[in-house]
């Protein structure tokens, strides 16, 4: 799968074109303008514009097939792994165009980490090696430093106390919920500027889900988090801002309180109250 970004230059748009009234944020972590993504002839995202606030949790909600996951993957250029993916528009990470001609997707992905729906630790690696794999890819070899970052990341992922005595055990010896927190630790170890989460708790039981949610609330003090979720209560519990997508379009974007108590659009209201989707 070639990494050439099949990208056509974004049409310069005035800021006012970002129609779905985005809540004003001082300096957004990500600014997305007119994002259109298609796979072959299938247009999955149609001209989405929004700002992602720094050090806050932004939830992306919407029915299946609305383009949530594609939106998330466009933010770290992971959608480019699909051979016929095409992207138009403009995405800036703290002002820097991540689709710029000189920007390597590898570098973007080091700055924008991701946690997936199903936990995917590297099964042949130990717990500690899983945490440090990103750092080692970056060339960090110093053992003390690696050990420090292992502890730090596992603490941030609220997993340290459970695994500190068996850091060399294989990662797959952990339970599902622990594996997912290990994946979060792995993503955090490289100190990303933004953390993308694609339904990180959907495969977990309620107890493990609660732990992940507590963790997300902790992490937003240091990281910018964008989370895709199917769980309305989850979005309401943990996010500061919520964007509602439908059929590849951004329908409404506002503070979570506003979206869930007094949405501006009928479609949003129908979805968050469970009338469709």
């Amino acid at each position, binding site marked *: 799968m070639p990494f050439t970004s099949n990208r056509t230059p974004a049409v310069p748009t005035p800021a006012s074109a970002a129609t779905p009234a985005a809540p004003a944020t001082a300096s957004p972590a990500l600014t997305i303008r007119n994002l259109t993504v298609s796979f072959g002839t299938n247009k999955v995202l149609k001209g989405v514009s929004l700002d992602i606030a720094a050090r806050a949790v932004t939830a992306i909600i919407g029915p299946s097939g609305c383009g949530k996951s594609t939106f998330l993957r466009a933010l770290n250029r992971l959608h480019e792994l699909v051979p016929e993916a095409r992207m138009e528009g403009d995405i800036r990470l703290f002002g820097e165009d991540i689709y710029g001609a000189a920007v390597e997707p*590898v570098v973007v992905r080091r700055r924008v980490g*991701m946690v*997936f729906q199903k936990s995917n630790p590297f099964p*042949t*690696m130990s717990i500690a090696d899983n945490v440090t794999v990103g750092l080692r*890819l970056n060339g960090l070899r110093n053992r003390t430093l690696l050990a420090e970052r292992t502890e730090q990341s596992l603490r941030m992922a609220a997993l340290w106390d459970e695994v500190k005595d068996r850091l060399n055990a294989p990662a797959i010896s952990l339970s599902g919920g622990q594996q997912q927190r290990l994946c979060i630790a792995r*993503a955090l170890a*490289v100190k990303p500027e933004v953390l993308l989460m694609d339904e990180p708790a959907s495969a977990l039981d309620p107890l493990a889900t609660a732990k992940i949610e507590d963790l997300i609330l902790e992490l937003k003090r240091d990281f910018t988090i964008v989370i895709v979720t199917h769980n309305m209560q989850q979005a309401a519990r943990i996010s500061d801002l919520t964007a509602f997508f439908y059929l590849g379009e951004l329908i409404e974007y506002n503070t979570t309180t506003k979206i869930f108590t007094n949405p501006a659009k009928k479609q949003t209201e129908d979805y968050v109250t469970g009338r469709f989707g």
Partner: protein
Amino acid sequence: MAMAESDPNVAGTIPRALAGRRFGDRAFKWFTLLMALTVFVLIVLIGCELADGSHLALRQFGWRFLVSSEWDPVSEQFGALPFVFGTLVSSAIGLIIAVPLSIATAVYLTELAPQWLRQPLTIFIELLAAVPSVILGLWGIFVMVPWLRVHLFPWLKGAFGFLPLFQGPIYGLSMLAGGIIIAIMVLPIITSMSREILRSVPGLQREAAYALGATRWEVTRIAVLSYAKKGLFGAVILGLGRALGETMAVTMVIGNNTQIAASLFAPGNTLASAIANQFAEATGDVYLSALFELGLVLLGVTVLVNAFAQLILKTFAGPSVTPQN
């Protein structure tokens, strides 16, 4: 009445229908068990037949057969060592050449090749597996061996002549030529097995590595190869099984000289080619029996090498990975 019987919702008919289905279930179990046992019985039978055929030689030479390197049909002195040596060395050469090639090809096919190229390339590799052994042998004699004699071997001798492996006269027909033919024969097997194994690595593993900012090579290394290493080892073992028993093509290029030589340029012989070559001319009972015993030894070597490989796999390949998707 007829309706009542065919209607599963009528209470009285249920036990009968169920009894029939239970019988089917049991019959299915016994049938599959029988088929599985057939394989086992076949192997035992083959072993017994070989042992029976070789009892003369077994009685006459005993354990000396395995350690003696004398093979003299005229004075009826037989020892299997040169053939065991030849089998192991030619197979080792074959694997040393074929394994990196096969795995690199499989990685290219699953990870790097553009979509439109994957299918045609795969078909070509599978075609190579379909080339009959004897045709490969003919090609070996008329094309490969002369080329080796004129080009590759003199170059090897010049570059690595300080090693005993590459010293001595060059005939063309040689242990190295046999090893190269074996490499060609096991290449498609190891490649297609490896390809299947690499394809079974969940996409989620690759995405995990990509999301950490890994380059394509790093993704292949940390997410794909390490995930698949156990399966890849299995593919190599399967190729080794084929290499040990490969007969026709090897016989045609290895030179069939019963000796143990350090030089890979020297002609050698393998267990399988000795049997194939000498069966027709084996006149004496002891001679025939010795050939049978070579077959027994080949079976033994194959079983031992496989068992050893399984042991390595269990000891070093780390925790077993169950596919996640």
